């Protein structure tokens, strides 16, 4: 304040900031990227540690013996599933009842806005079956959930077998303090959504379901089990949930601790952790793992059945059996013991998991980057926007010295009218609104007039509106306010910069990965766009850095990181399916990435596009 109250020093400071603006911005951008990439370097990260006392010091013994029997139950389940041609509801009810559980079912149905071509679903009608193991002498106030999904496509019968085996074993134990709910959900995420909405008696996505009959109070934690391959070499932990929400880090710590104890090979993002962090390949491995997490989190999808629990403040993770490390084998008994151990520790919880981090990135299972470490990377990018805005503000405040005589006549006109700012804002947002609403609404019309399927119609409409938006704004503002002025675009850019800064800041607080990826691509164009750039080059750069292209790059980068690179054609197909999945995720589960991009990020980018073509 002392610095600012002195007009001389203030001037010196602003001079410094405006004179060195571009170099500072460049340094910040490079530093932001470098900081981010440095996060994967092991010495810069923290080791994971158990924060929750109730799970830390208490030892539990794992004694689950019946892995083979569980597999047999799984095979029986598979046979009944084949026979029933879907969820073998009656068999499951009977089997769960025989294991001493209170069994309930829930019917649900959902018509998707357009057919999902990945899973071939359109009109979904299914049944969830769940059994509650009532804890002795507990008053139905707390519960834990174990789920395994059963859908047409997947072969998750091992997981169902293990779930039933664990139910039988858990039933005979006396130490339970929380009810345990064993849930077999049909149509994985859709069934899960129906069950969760039924359990909490909410309806946020227009699902049709029958009310639940039995409940176990407030759910404290949930684990979802996916064992899709017959041979399981290692267990993978999936954390990323809807809208990039993550469960408390202690849940990951718990999994890791038990993997260490029982000696199971465990991975995250399908990648083992390596000890050679000081070699380039070791670093690359960690960076790959972290980038995969960033990509998955940014997508805002639920990467397992657990993802939908997070909205209800229930800590949840998916444990996935994978088959990629030939020399190892993990049998069902071991997985059962792992789950038993985890459940017993969760059963010991006195409070909800809250001690550890909710915002983190994991370059490996044993290391994590907390919000305090990764936020500066984003901050360095975001500060560019503020510096540029400051620069513009100063420029707008001081009369340009060279043009004093010429400007004198147009002085009153030089302060741009509100209309000239408002018009591009409104138009770009209306384009955004069209992008958000039209694809689904106009699918029928598109199918009638073009030889495409509904899904293609939706995706192609979206792309068409997106492209059409590029043509719209730079033509429209002239009609309303006449000639744009030099000051006009500066004010508009100032508004757009602050808008983007707020938008990205808010996004990064909720979903760091999404905010960071958007910042990496949007900040350069936001910082340097002016109407005076060479048109062809700058137009190309702007289009290549637009949100739509960012998504395309993400598809390729993700495939690259998964070590499954795709050709351009395949990539394009994948890109189209990603768009349709994004729209479906929004309407089915309430994922917010699609509306965020369509309603805010894209219009914001259009504002800069507008500045580029300012006349």
């Amino acid at each position, binding site marked *: 304040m002392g610095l600012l109250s002195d007009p001389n020093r203030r001037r010196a400071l602003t001079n410094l900031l405006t004179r060195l603006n571009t170099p500072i911005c460049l340094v910040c951008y490079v530093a932001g990227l470098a900081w981010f990439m440095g996060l994967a370097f092991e010495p810069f990260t923290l080791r994971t540690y158990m924060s929750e006392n109730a799970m830390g010091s208490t030892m539990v013994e794992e004694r689950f013996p019946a892995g083979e029997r569980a597999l047999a139950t799984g095979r029986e389940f598979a046979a009944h599933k084949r026979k029933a041609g879907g969820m073998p509801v009656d068999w499951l009810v009977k089997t769960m009842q025989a294991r001493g559980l*209170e069994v309930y079912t829930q019917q649900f149905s959902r018509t998707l806005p357009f057919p999902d071509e990945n899973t071939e679903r359109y009109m979904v009608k299914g049944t969830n079956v769940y059994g509650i193991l009532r804890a002795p*002498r507990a008053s139905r106030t707390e519960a834990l959930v174990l789920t395994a999904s059963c859908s047409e496509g997947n072969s998750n019968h091992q997981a169902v077998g293990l779930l039933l085996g664990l139910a039988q074993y858990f039933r005979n134990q006396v130490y339970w303090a929380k009810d345990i709910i064993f849930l077999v959900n049909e149509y994985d995420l859709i069934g899960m959504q129906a069950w969760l909405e039924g359990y909490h008696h909410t309806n946020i996505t227009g699902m049709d379901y029958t009310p639940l009959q039995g*409940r176990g109070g407030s759910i404290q934690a949930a684990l979802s089990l996916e064992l899709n391959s017959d041979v399981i070499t290692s267990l993978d932990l999936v954390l990323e949930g809807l809208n990039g929400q993550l469960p408390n880090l202690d849940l990951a710590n718990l999994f890791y601790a038990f993997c260490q104890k029982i000696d199971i090979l465990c991975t995250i993002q399908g990648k083992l952790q390596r000890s050679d962090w000081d070699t380039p390949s070791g670093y690359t491995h960690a960076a790959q793992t972290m980038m995969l997490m960033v990509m998955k989190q940014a997508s805002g999808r639920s990467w397992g059945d657990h993802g939908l629990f997070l909205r209800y403040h229930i800590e949840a993770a998916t444990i996935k059996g994978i088959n990629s490390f030939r020399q190892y084998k993990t049998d069902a008994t071991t997985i059962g013991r792992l789950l038993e151990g985890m459940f017993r520790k969760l059963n010991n919880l006195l409070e909800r998991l809250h001690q550890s981090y909710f915002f983190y990135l994991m370059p490996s299972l044993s290391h994590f980057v907390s919000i305090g470490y990764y936020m500066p990377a984003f901050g360095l990018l975001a500060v560019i926007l503020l510096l540029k805005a400051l620069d513009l503000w100063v420029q707008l405040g001081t009369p340009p010295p060279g043009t004093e005589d010429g400007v004198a006549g147009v002085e009153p006109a030089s302060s741009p009218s509100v209309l000239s700012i408002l018009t591009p804002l409104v138009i770009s947002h209306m384009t955004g609104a069209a992008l958000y609403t039209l694809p689904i609404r106009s699918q029928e019309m598109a199918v009638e007039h073009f030889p495409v399927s509904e899904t293609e119609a939706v995706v192609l409409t979206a792309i068409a509106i997106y492209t059409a938006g590029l043509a719209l704004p730079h033509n429209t503002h002239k009609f309303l306010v006449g000639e744009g002025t030099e000051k006009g675009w500066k004010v508009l850019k100032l508004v757009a910069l602050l808008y983007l800064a707020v938008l990205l800041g808010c996004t990064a607080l909720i979903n760091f990965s999404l905010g960071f990826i958007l910042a990496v691509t949007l900040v350069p164009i936001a910082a340097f766009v002016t109407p005076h750039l060479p048109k062809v080059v700058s137009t190309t750069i702007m289009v290549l850095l637009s949100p739509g292209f960012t998504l395309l790059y993400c598809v390729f980068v993700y495939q690259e990181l998964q070590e499954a690179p795709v050709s351009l054609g395949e990539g394009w197909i994948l890109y189209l399916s990603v768009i349709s999945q994004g729209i479906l995720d929004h309407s089915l589960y309430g994922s917010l990435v699609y509306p965020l991009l369509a309603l805010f990020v894209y219009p914001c980018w259009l504002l800069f596009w507008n500045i580029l073509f300012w006349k």
Partner: protein
Amino acid sequence: MAPRSSIAFLLAFAALCSLQLCEVSDDLDQTKSEPEPFTEPNQVPVDEKLEKPGEVPPIVSYSDPIEESHDDKQWQATEEEAIAKPEPDEEIAPLSTFKDDFKEELVLRPLHSGDIYASFQFRTLWDTDFLQGKRVSHYHLFPKSLGQVISKFSVRELHISFTQGYWRTMQWGQPYLPSPPGAELWVWFQDTVTDVDGAWKELTNVLSGIFCASLNFIDSTNTVHPSASFKPLGLGNVTDPRFLRYAMLPREIVCTENLTPWKKLLPCGTKAGLAVLMKSEKLFHSSFHSEAVHIRPVCQDVDCKAPSWELRQTLNVVFDVHTSGQGKKEWSLFKMFSRTLTEACPLASSSKVYVDVTDNPQGELFELLPASPLLTQAVVLGDRRTYSVYDLTNKDTFGSTRSLNLLVRWKADSGEMVRPLLHSERYVAGFGLQTGEIHTLIYNYHPYRAFPVLLLETVPWYLRLYIHTLTVTSKNKENKPSYIHYQPSKDRLRPHLLEMMVQLPPNSVTEVTVQFERALLKWTEYTPDPNHGFYVGSSVISALVPSMVAMDTNNTQEQPLFSSFFPCKEESSYFVRIYTEPLLVNLPTPDFSMPYNVICLTCTVVAVGYGSFYNLLTRTFQVEEPSPGLAKRLANVIRRWRGVPEL
């Protein structure tokens, strides 16, 4: 304390004697008449009502005297009447003699889920009357600690229960005596009490000491005076809710430290009688555990000219055969309690074990060993049940092994249970930490009868009920309650009280919903484990449920204790009280490591802000020659040093 200790001594002595005698002689009469020191004059010699196996008692079933059964099994006569009758004759006994009466009984009910429900009831009657201002200094069977409490605080009725676990109505049917999870206390004070709140506060603290429970946490924020749900169960017709206090502590954990003081209230302690079965490690190794104490004034005799105090101690346990039996469906007293019965409490005028054999008339469901020659019928909870009776005062009950170890061996899987007519469920709907909705579902499974229920909800003040959102719907139609009593909460002072009378249509679900907002507490108001959540006590649903059989309204007749707790006024319906699940609600909780950060941050902000403002306000501004730049000044220094003129 002197009388108590001497009684304890006598008890120990008696137990010892009776044990020895059991060993030396099988002569029942001798055993029974032996413990002279504590046989009261009014206790009828047991011989009179003794049933010898050879002697067939008249075939009378007191619940339905018309119906005559000609089974090969014998029906138990109402031999209690024999006790009741001589009592008026004893009235003339001198004042120094005690007229206390003690009865004990254990009911075992094999449940359809395969579990076993064991319900102990101990009743002590005390013929005294504080109301006339008599000071009582002599205690016989009635525990002095409680006697002093009721006389000091002018308590008319006191009901207290400690429960661990939730009664699963849909699997187990209705309990004989319902109780909510945690602790529940309700007290009717005499109408002479002027400062009810003060008495209540003191009383809860005293009871807290007696039962080693956290009843001292009962304060105005969780005490209510329900207007209709809790009527006095004993004599008297004062129903002004000003004299009623009701509180529930859903979080209370019940364990041995509560059981031990409860056991000490029994005249025989755990030395003899049914109470020997009460081994803590077994009682708490169960699915449900509930102990309760009920004190109320009752009629002294059939004529009901004078009141006497009744102390009922009940203990309800459900044993999970599945976990303990490892899937084998067989249980015995020894398996459940790690004890067998060897004798009745010598102070007890009646000591019986009932086993519910209604579902097993021909022994096809389970086999009960040893078989009892006695059967009795009682109308309990709207149903006529048949019980095998084992009279512990009868020497023959123990057989040649001199111990009674009831054993049930299941033969077949039990069939479907008759669904209880009334059932309820409650949960919190919604997500997020701002608002929520409490849903209470009340099921009426009666196929064609509608009946009204009284619903009582007590919600702590930190859930701010939006009472305008209260909806009651049955069968998708609005169901207007015929009576609503709502008392809004006051922050930090009193809870919400919502009481209403709802008519339940036949075979329907009635849903009561009300939205609430979660309050942000002051940071010292959070419990030590705030992220666990905050409890909302069970709602209480009281109803007169239409009975399938005619209820027994004749209170003058002696009935088994478990069937006679709630007074029954009409034949067509019976009283049921059910409790819903308590709720666990998360409130917005600050990160409690934050205060430190907040202190640091605010200090910094205050320091920086204050400093700058102070600076701005006190500084005097004046025009100053622009000072040369740093480079120029450096250059001047060098120039001065070199002796060259400055710039």
